[in-house]
């Protein structure tokens, strides 16, 4: 007995020694942390994430929705690019969404998602995103996660400093990255300094419907306007735009636009601008731009052509715009949660300048200016400086905040996130990014009340981080826990396209308002078919309308004869389902566009122009039910002017 006991004790000791000796090296290699991190991003099957995160797709033109902390991809919302998967931009209903004054544009470069806010806090109603190339701003409804509006912007070239919102979503802004001739015209490029201007657009947002309108534009000197953020709290009523290329170079900007020691943050007092607008100071300038709105009732988008825009010129409107000198081509301009500090990240400098809003107002009050540019007073750098975050890294780009008075800035060149204290400007932590981080995002981190907890860094380069996929590799996002003193890397995951920026908010702000179906009785589509009995096929000349329904597991009608080559056949398919997660797809052989993906209660239309005689199948593309594979039909195409009568049926041959 005693011997047994001794052996047991002995074994225990050995085990303890082994455990202790193992622990050392593992924790040194970060192994223990990795295990711990895994449990913190693990969302068990059937469980839900804490946050919705919206990451821009960059050159994919779309917006992807992830759950955090798991990094699960929930949806890719088509915005500026056609999407065959959902028929977006291919079906007759959404084609208008991508119409511009240049015609149908099937692609764009989507950079910055921005959630609507109420009292300076994300409210979960809409999310806006900019199209950089063919200057546009889109609005996505967060009850349906669908793009419901796209507004084109006149007098702009590269809609980059966009669509940052004001505290109550009074406006989302859209500053032009590239200055262009104003008005746009055929002039020598060399006339850049004389003929080019940079327009900052203020887009008003209807507080109830969300509908956007270019309320006014402020015409600034021909610089590049890079990013923006609006004031909050005490600085509500102001919007700040960074500028670079204040050298006004029009060729080889990488050198030409990097000479000045300081560029500017343009501080726009938009409440003042509203007064000038009311007082009739705006010039109604002829402009040609389109406004596309998707109506949820008719499930259809329509386009309105806009002809004029109100333009305010700072020279004629004193006290509306000021320039704040800021070192070396600033990229991000970020306002802390109190609204007092304006962080300008000079991307070619090592230090970061933080301006004080109070000091700025004070300098303006004292008229302490170092000069004016095109009627815009330039305040003195020293007058407004609150502090400098020193030797913090190289290439600061963008800053967000937590709820505990810390700021987090990305450094592109030194590829890291730096944590510093607002007020004392001391650097307290830094964490590497893999690799070359652009923007970062903290849920609510650009609002008055950051939700905190996590930080998402979005990286431009991944090289050896994932399995190779040939020359083209993914961009990535990296999730850090910021609830402690030290930032801790928890997870990294590849992204759709290039995420330039992101937004996130607690799921509770969205989840209960998320739509499950569209009510069939509210469907006001002109070609809706609300019951199988109403199904029919009509012909007007060579235009054929098929009023078709889809319900598990058949189309009605599913046999159609009397179509002729050269016809334009519109399949208007109504999904009669009223159950959650029962979409039906529709695809027909030889279609030159895409499929339809029709949600319950919705009507969508596919144009089919048959060129060959024969009998062609159509079928449901979304695995809807046990008899999905049987959900099919035939359409017979006869020669032009053949005397096959127009007939349709379902279920019984030749009714």
């Amino acid at each position, binding site marked *: 007995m005693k011997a047994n006991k001794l052996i047991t004790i002995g074994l225990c000791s050995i085990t303890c020694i082994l455990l202790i000796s193992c622990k050392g090296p593992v924790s040194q290699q970060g192994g223990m942390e990795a295990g711990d991190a895994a449990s913190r991003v693990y969302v068990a099957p059937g469980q839900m994430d804490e946050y919705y995160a919206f990451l821009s797709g960059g050159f994919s033109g779309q917006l992807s929705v992830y759950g955090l902390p798991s990094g699960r991809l929930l949806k890719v919302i088509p915005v500026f690019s056609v999407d065959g998967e959902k028929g977006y931009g291919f079906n007759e209903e959404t084609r208008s969404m991508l119409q511009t004054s240049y015609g149908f544009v099937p692609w764009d470069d989507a950079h910055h998602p921005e959630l609507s806010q109420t009292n300076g806090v994300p409210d979960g109603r809409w999310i806006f995103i900019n199209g950089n190339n063919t200057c546009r701003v889109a609005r996505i409804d967060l009850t349906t996660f669908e793009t419901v509006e796209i507004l084109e912007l006149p007098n702009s070239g590269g809609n980059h400093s966009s669509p940052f919102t004001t505290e109550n979503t009074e406006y989302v802004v859209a500053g032009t990255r590239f200055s262009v001739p104003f008005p746009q015209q055929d002039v020598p490029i060399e006339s850049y300094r004389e003929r080019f201007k940079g327009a900052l657009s203020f887009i008003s947002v209807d507080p109830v419907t969300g509908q956007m309108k270019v309320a006014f534009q402020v015409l600034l000197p021909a610089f590049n306007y890079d990013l923006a953020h609006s004031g909050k709290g005490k600085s509500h009523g102001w919007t700040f735009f960074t500028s670079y290329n204040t050298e006004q170079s029009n060729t080889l900007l990488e050198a030409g636009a990097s000479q000045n020691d300081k560029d500017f943050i343009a501080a726009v007092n938009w409440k003042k601008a509203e007064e000038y607008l009311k007082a009739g100071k705006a010039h109604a300038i002829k402009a040609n731009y389109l406004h596309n709105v998707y109506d949820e009732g008719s499930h259809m988008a329509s386009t309105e052509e806009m002809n004029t825009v109100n333009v305010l010129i700072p020279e004629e409107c004193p006290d509306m715009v000021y320039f704040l000198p800021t070192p070396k081509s600033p990229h991000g301009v970020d306002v802390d949660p109190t609204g007092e500090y304006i962080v300008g990240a000079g991307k070619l400098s090592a230090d970061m300048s933080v301006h004080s809003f109070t000091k700025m107002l004070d300098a303006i009050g004292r008229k302490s200016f170092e000069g004016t540019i095109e009627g815009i007073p330039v305040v003195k750098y020293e007058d407004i400086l609150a502090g400098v975050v020193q030797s913090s890294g190289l290439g600061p780009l963008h800053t967000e905040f937590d709820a505990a008075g810390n700021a987090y800035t990305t450094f592109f060149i030194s590829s890291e996130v730096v944590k510093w204290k607002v007020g004392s400007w001391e650097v307290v932590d830094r964490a590497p990014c893999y690799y070359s981080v652009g923007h970062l995002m903290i849920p609510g981190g650009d609002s008055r009340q950051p939700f905190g907890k996590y930080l998402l860094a979005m990286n431009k380069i991944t090289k050896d981080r994932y399995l190779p996929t040939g020359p083209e590799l993914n961009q990535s996002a990296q999730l850090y826990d910021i609830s402690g003193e030290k930032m801790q890397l928890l997870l990294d995951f590849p992204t759709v396209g290039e995420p330039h920026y992101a937004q996130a908010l607690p799921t509770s702000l969205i989840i209960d308002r998320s739509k499950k*179906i569209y*009510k069939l009785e509210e469907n006001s589509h002109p070609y809706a078919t609300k019951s199988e009995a109403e199904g029919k096929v009509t012909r007007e000349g060579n235009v054929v309308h098929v009023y078709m329904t889809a*319900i*598990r*597991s058949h189309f009605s009608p599913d046999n159609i004869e009397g179509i002729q080559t050269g016809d334009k056949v519109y399949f208007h398919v109504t999904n*009669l*389902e*009223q*159950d959650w997660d029962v979409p039906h797809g529709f695809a027909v052989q030889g279609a030159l566009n895409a499929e339809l993906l029709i949600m*319950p209660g919705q009507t969508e239309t596919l144009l089919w122009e048959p060129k060959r005689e024969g009998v062609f199948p159509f079928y449901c593309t979304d695995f809807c*039910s*046990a*008899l999905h594979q*049987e959900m099919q039909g035939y359409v017979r195409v006869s020669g032009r002017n053949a005397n096959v009568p127009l007939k349709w049926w379902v279920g019984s041959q030749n009714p």
Partner: protein
Amino acid sequence: MIFLAGLSLIGLFLFPVWKITLEAPQYPGGISMYIWINKISGDSPGTLQNINILNHYIGMQAIHPDSIPELNYFQYIVILMTLLAFLLAAFHKRSLLLIWTIVLVLLSAFALYDFYQWEYDYGHNLSPDAAIKVPGMTYQPPFLGDKTLLNFVAYSYPSLGSVFIGLSMLFGGMAFIFKRKYNIEQ
């Protein structure tokens, strides 16, 4: 007391009598159908359609409330019984109280039998063209309790309306008993 019995019956217009729930993994929370004295409802306006879609695969007839005459005439019987109860409250006729209560019990028994008949019909009278035919399988939902029907578990239980019928019987019976006591004391 008999007045309360009549009043309880009005509860039948406020709450469903029976609830049938179908559960399967892809229907989190289940699909519930509520049978009222005068209608059939569901968790959502689309519920009945959703149940009919599921049922058509096994060849079950679609449930159309309009084609179930009971949903039309039962409500008049209830109204009649309620009015009779109110009338009896005015008269002091003890034997009538007993008769009223017995009639109510008989009517309820008939309603349950009728419900069973409909369940039997839906469950057995299947279309020969059904997509899914399992030899020997019928799909009658349980009369009371739960039952596995292919991938679904069907639960069938009385709902709040039935409680009101029960209360009504109780009050009817009590009215009769107390009336007797009252008579004896006299």
